[in-house]
């Protein structure tokens, strides 16, 4: 039964043989949004998606504890059975108000939000048009959808237009799916051009703001807000497991008849709902996100500091400064070595290997948090530069050191 994983096991063993298993890191303790203990040593967390640092927001923790005491540890049921409490409904209203949308529905994870949304929205006879660098949850949702799936080149509105043109004569709805910030490289979608392509073709547009909620836009509503195109976005998907510091996902829209999705999105219907503790912390975290716009400024500055520091250290960086900074690695062996050496220097980053990465190229992926201090980032840059230099990857004089 498991023989088919022989090659995968061999590959995993080869990656782990160079040091630690990068996909099996177990922290002894997590001390804060920016530090953990690993094998008795403090490490700086530079790969968490904890963009606003709200995992340790005191009010969110208190709300979570109070909800557990009042309502128990779990709902033991799905949203369409016994698993909808007043908190779930209130969170959906709160989220809709924050996003300026008529309706929102909450899923148990962000992965399930895409799975449920895409499979329910795009049925047999419809068309899904996915950016080639889409997250696995989008691809998996598309596989469940029954719709014909077409990929277009990453962030290429002309390629999207070309494909829409080919599909123009075919019946069925066309749903385009793009992401606000792409998780591997931190680049953003050219959203206005995507919107223009959508309008020309009479298609629909779903925007996944998983990495951009709380990060982009004056009020943190994401890329659509930043680009001034919110009315053109038909469906917004997002997660609570990044800037809101918990777990869960959502789908929001202004369309009439939205509630039919509650009876058709299987990833919503056939799984237990979020526990009261998470519902409470997320609701409180939305308040914190709204009340603390300075966190977004600090996040932006931190991303710029890391980006500038690494550029000065001689690393070739792709995307513009964002909370995600990725270093392209020449090959898998070097990537694994870099990751291990960096951890030995006390910095945890993400090792990202193909096929999860654009073009299957290995990456050392980092993401900053608003609550990292300039000194922590400087220390991280110094460590990364040292490792890069030892592996011959940081080519020019190390101005950051």
């Amino acid at each position, binding site marked *: 039964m498991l023989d088919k994983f022989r090659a995968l096991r061999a590959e995993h063993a080869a990656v782990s043989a160079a040091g630690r298993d990068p996909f099996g890191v177990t922290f002894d303790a997590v001390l804060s949004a920016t530090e953990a203990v690993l094998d008795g040593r403090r490490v700086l967390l530079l790969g968490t998606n904890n963009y606003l640092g709200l995992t340790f927001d005191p009010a969110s923790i208190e709300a979570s504890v109070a909800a557990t005491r009042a309502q128990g540890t779990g709902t033991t049921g799905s949203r369409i059975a016994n698993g909808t409490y007043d908190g779930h409904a209130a969170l959906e209203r709160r989220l809709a108000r924050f996003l300026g949308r008529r309706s929102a529905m909450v899923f148990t994870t962000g992965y399930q939000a895409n799975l449920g949304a895409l499979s329910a929205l795009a049925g047999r006879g419809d068309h899904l048009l996915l950016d*080639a660098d889409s997250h696995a949850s989008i691809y998996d949702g*598309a596989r469940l959808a029954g719709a*014909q*799936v*077409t*990929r277009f*080149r990453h962030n290429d509105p002309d*390629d999207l237009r*070309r*494909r829409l043109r*080919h*599909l123009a004569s*075919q019946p069925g709805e066309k749903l385009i799916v793009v992401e606000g910030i792409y998780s591997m490289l931190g680049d953003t979608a050219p959203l206005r051009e995507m919107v223009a392509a959508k309008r020309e073709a009479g298609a629909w547009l779903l925007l996944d703001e998983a990495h951009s909620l709380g990060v982009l836009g004056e009020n943190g509503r994401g890329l659509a807000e930043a680009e001034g195109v919110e009315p053109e976005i038909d469906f917004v998907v997002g997660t609570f497991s990044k800037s809101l510091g918990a777990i869960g996902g959502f789908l929001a829209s202004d369309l009439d008849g939205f509630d039919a999705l509650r009876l058709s999105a299987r990833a919503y219907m056939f799984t237990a709902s979020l526990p009261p503790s998470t519902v409470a912390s997320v609701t409180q975290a939305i308040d914190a996100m709204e009340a603390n716009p300075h966190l977004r400024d600090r996040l932006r500055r931190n991303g710029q500091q890391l980006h500038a520091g690494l550029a000065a250290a001689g690393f070739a960086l792709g995307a513009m400064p964002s909370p995600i900074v990725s270093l392209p690695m020449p090959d898998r062996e070097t990537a694994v070595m870099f990751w291990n050496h960096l951890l030995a220097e006390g910095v945890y980053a993400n090792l990202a290997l*193909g*096929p999860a990465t654009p*073009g*299957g190229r290995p990456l050392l992926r980092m993401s900053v948090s608003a609550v990292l201090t300039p000194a922590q980032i400087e220390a991280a840059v110094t460590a990364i530069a040292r490792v890069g230099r030892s592996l011959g990857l940081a080519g020019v004089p190390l101005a950051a050191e």
Partner: protein
Amino acid sequence: MGLRTGDASMLDERAALREITAALQESGKLTAPVTMDTRILQDLNFDSVGAIDFIMLLETRLDTIIPMDRMAEIETVGDLVRVLTRPDAAAA
């Protein structure tokens, strides 16, 4: 040069094979003559990501699209030729 809009649906097998060969050359994967039996992953040394990128390159050259659900049918160059030449293959 690739074919122009609409031509993809009229491709015959030889033309499709010619285009595939040219696309392989463009992507630096043409190390030996390609036949209908050439296996895309094993013989051309593509990984799964590279293979999909190659298909996208081919789609652009031929100004056509190959839906993702047809990808599962494609193991050899011959399979790819058939997908490209069957009228319902591409949505063109």
